[in-house]
C-alpha cells in the first residue's frame, strides 16, 4: 500500500466525485430493480461497492485518455459523463441506447468520451487497450490508455502477453487491476499462486503498486501518479486496487459462497459512507447538502429509467445494420438472413 497521504482535490471536485459515486450507486440499484421486473435481460453485473475504484480512476484522467473496461462498466460510462438515459435505454435494449440496443449491459461504449467499451471475455480487452496506447504513441499524442480489469483476468495468458509488450515497448498504458477478491464464485486463494497481482506486472519491468480501492482519494492519487508516469515519462504502470463488490457476480448469482460476516466487514468500509465523512469533516458538504445531492441524483435516475421505458424498441428490420462499416449487396448473406 502507498504510504503518503493522498492530496485533497479542490472542494468543487470533491463534491463532483461524491456526486458521481452516488449516481453510480443509485443507478446500479435501479438497474437491479429493472432486472427483477424483467425489463433488463441477459447478464447484469453490478459494481456496487466498487464506486471508489471507478470514480477515483476516471477523475484522475484527462477526458481524452482512452478507457476500456470489463462487462461491469456502467459506472465507467457514468463517470465519463455518458447520458444516464442512453445507458439505461441500452440496458433495456432500446433504439435510444448508447449502442442502439446491440450491446446491452456488458457492452457499453461512448467513443465521443473516449470510453472504448465494456467487453465480455475476461482479459480479452486488455490487448485492445494496448493498441489504443500504441496509437497514441504512433500519433505522438499525450494520451494515456487506461484499462480496468479484475484479478481474475490477470490469470489469463493474454494479460501477461500485454504486460510483456507494454514493458518491452514502453507504451503509455496504465493497467488497473481491480482486485475484488473473487473470480465469479472462486476466491483468490483458490485461483492464484500469490495473493498480490501487481508483482506480475512488475516482473515485466512495469512500475507497479497496490492501494486501498475503497478509498476514492487514494485511488485518485495512485492513478494520477500512474498516468503521470505514462504521460510524461512514457512508461507503463500498473495499479492494483483492493476492493469488494457487494452483490454476487451478476444478478443471476445468489451469492451464497461468500460469508455474511465478510460482506459486513467490507460494507463497514463503504466507499460512499467513508467519503461522505471526509466531506462532512472538511466542511465541503453538510448533511443537508448530502441529502440534496442524493435527491438530485435520484431525479436523474428516475428520468433515465422513465426515458428508457418509454423509448421505442429497435426495429427488427434493422437487425443486420452495423455488421459492416458499409452495407453491401451480398446475395449469399441475404439468403440466410432472418426476415421479420
Amino acid at each position: 500500500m502507498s504510504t503518503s497521504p493522498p492530496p485533497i482535490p479542490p472542494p468543487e471536485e470533491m463534491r463532483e466525485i461524491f456526486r458521481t459515486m452516488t449516481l453510480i450507486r443509485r443507478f446500479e440499484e435501479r438497474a437491479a430493480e429493472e432486472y427483477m421486473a424483467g425489463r433488463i435481460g441477459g447478464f447484469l453485473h453490478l459494481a456496487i461497492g466498487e464506486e471508489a475504484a471507478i470514480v477515483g480512476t476516471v477523475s484522475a484522467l484527462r477526458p481524452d485518455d482512452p478507457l476500456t473496461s470489463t462487462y461491469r462498466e456502467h459506472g465507467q460510462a457514468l463517470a465519463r459523463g455518458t447520458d444516464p438515459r442512453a445507458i439505461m435505454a441500452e440496458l433495456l435494449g432500446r433504439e435510444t441506447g448508447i449502442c442502439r440496443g446491440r450491446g446491452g449491459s456488458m457492452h457499453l461504449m461512448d467513443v465521443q468520451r473516449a470510453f472504448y467499451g465494456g467487453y465480455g471475455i475476461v482479459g480479452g480487452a486488455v490487448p485492445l487497450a494496448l493498441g489504443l496506447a500504441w496509437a497514441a504513441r504512433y500519433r505522438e499524442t499525450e494520451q494515456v490508455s487506461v484499462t480496468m480489469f479484475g484479478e481474475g483476468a490477470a490469470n489469463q495468458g493474454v494479460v501477461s502477453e500485454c504486460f510483456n509488450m507494454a514493458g518491452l515497448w514502453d507504451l503509455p498504458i496504465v493497467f488497473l487491476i481491480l482486485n475484488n477478491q473473487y473470480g465469479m464464485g472462486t476466491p483468490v486463494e483458490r485461483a492464484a499462486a500469490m495473493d498480490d497481482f501487481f508483482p506480475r506486472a512488475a516482473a515485466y519491468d512495469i512500475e507497479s503498486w497496490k492501494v486501498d480501492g475503497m478509498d476514492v482519494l487514494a485511488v485518485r492519487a495512485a492513478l494520477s501518479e500512474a498516468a503521470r508516469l505514462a504521460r510524461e515519462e512514457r512508461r507503463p504502470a500498473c495499479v492494483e486496487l483492493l476492493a469488494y463488490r457487494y452483490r454476487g457476480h451478476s444478478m443471476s448469482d445468489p451469492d451464497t459462497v461468500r460469508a455474511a460476516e465478510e460482506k459486513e466487514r467490507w460494507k463497514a468500509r463503504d466507499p460512499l459512507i467513508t467519503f461522505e465523512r471526509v466531506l462532512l469533516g472538511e466542511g465541503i458538504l453538510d448533511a443537508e447538502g448530502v441529502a440534496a445531492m442524493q435527491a438530485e441524483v435520484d431525479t436523474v435516475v428516475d428520468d433515465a429509467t422513465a426515458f428508457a421505458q418509454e423509448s421505442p424498441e429497435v426495429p427488427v428490420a434493422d437487425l443486420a445494420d452495423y455488421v459492416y462499416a458499409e452495407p453491401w449487396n451480398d446475395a449469399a448473406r441475404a439468403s440466410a438472413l432472418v426476415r421479420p
Partner: protein
Amino acid sequence: MSTEGKDVTYREAINQALREEMIRDESVFLMGEDIGHFEGAFKVTKGLLAEFGEKRVVDTPITEAGFTGLCVGAAMAGLRPVVEIMTVNFALVAMDQIVSNASKIHYMFGGQVDVPMVIRMPGGAGHQLSAQHSHSLDAMFAHVPGLKVCVPSTPEDAKGLLKTAIRDDDPVIVLESEGLYGKKGPVGGEDHLVPFGQAVVRRPGRDCTIVATSRMVWVALAAAEQLAAQGVEAEVIDPRTYRPLDLDTLAESVRRTSRAVVVDEGWPECGIAANLAAHLYESCFDWLDAPIGRVNSADVPMPYAKNLEQAAIPQPADVVAAVMATLAREVPR
C-alpha cells in the same frame, strides 16, 4: 521501379501491395513475428523495414493473441494495421481477438467505431509439416459475420485484393497459400484494386462448373486440362472472396452447365465446399442434372509421411473423378 506488365511471384505481389499502401497512407503499419529484420518467414516483407523503419514495420514477440488484439485496438483508434500471422495455424491462439473483438466491435457498439485492419496469413498443406502446421481453416473465418475473407489464387489477385483490404474499413482476413508464394504471373499497377465479392472465370466450359479458390484453383485447372483430353469442357470459377460471396456468378455458371463440383483444401465436415454446395442447391436446384460433387482434404489430421499426405489433400485426379461422377461417366484409365 515499376514491375507493371512483368511477371512477378505471389510473394512479390503481396510485397508490392504492402509497400504501395504504406507509401499512400501513413496510418498503415505492419506487425508480426520476424517480419522486420528477418524479412518474414516467407520473405514477403523483404526490404520493408529498411524502407519504412521500425515505427511501421514491427517485429513482435511470439504472442499472437497479444499483438492481434493490440492491432484491433490500434484500428479502433483509426490506424490501419496489417498483421502478419506467420501461418494460419498460429491464428488459433488469436481466435478470441479475431472473433470476439475484431468481428463484433462495429456491431455490438452500434457502429461507433470501425476496425479497419487486415490479418494476412498463409495456410495449406503439401510440405510434410504434419498435423499442427498444415491447416486450411478458411471455414472458421468465413463462418463469422463481421469479417471479410479473401483467398487470392494468383499474383494479380494477391496484390489487388490486399490493396482493397488495406483500404477497407472492416476487419479483413487474407488467406494466402504457402504453396503459391513462388507462383509467377502478371500484376497490376498502383491503382489496381480487386473489388470484394466478384468471382472470376478462370477457364470457360459448358459441361460442368468447378468452384475452387487459392491453390485449389490450380488443381482444378489441371483437372480441367485432363478432362478436356477426354472431351469434357469444365468451367473453373474462383470466387476470390468468401465474404462477401459472389453467388450470382457461381449460380449463373451452374444454371448453364447443370453440374457442379466444389474443391476445397479444408476438411469436408461443415466446410467451405459444404457451404458453397448448399448455396448452389438453394439457388440452382431446378437446373441441376446431378448431385453437386465435393472434393476436400481427407477427414483426418494431416499426416507426415509423404505418400499419406498426398493421399489426404485434393489432387487433380480427385477433381476429374468428381466431375465424371456428375456426368455419370466412368473415370478413364
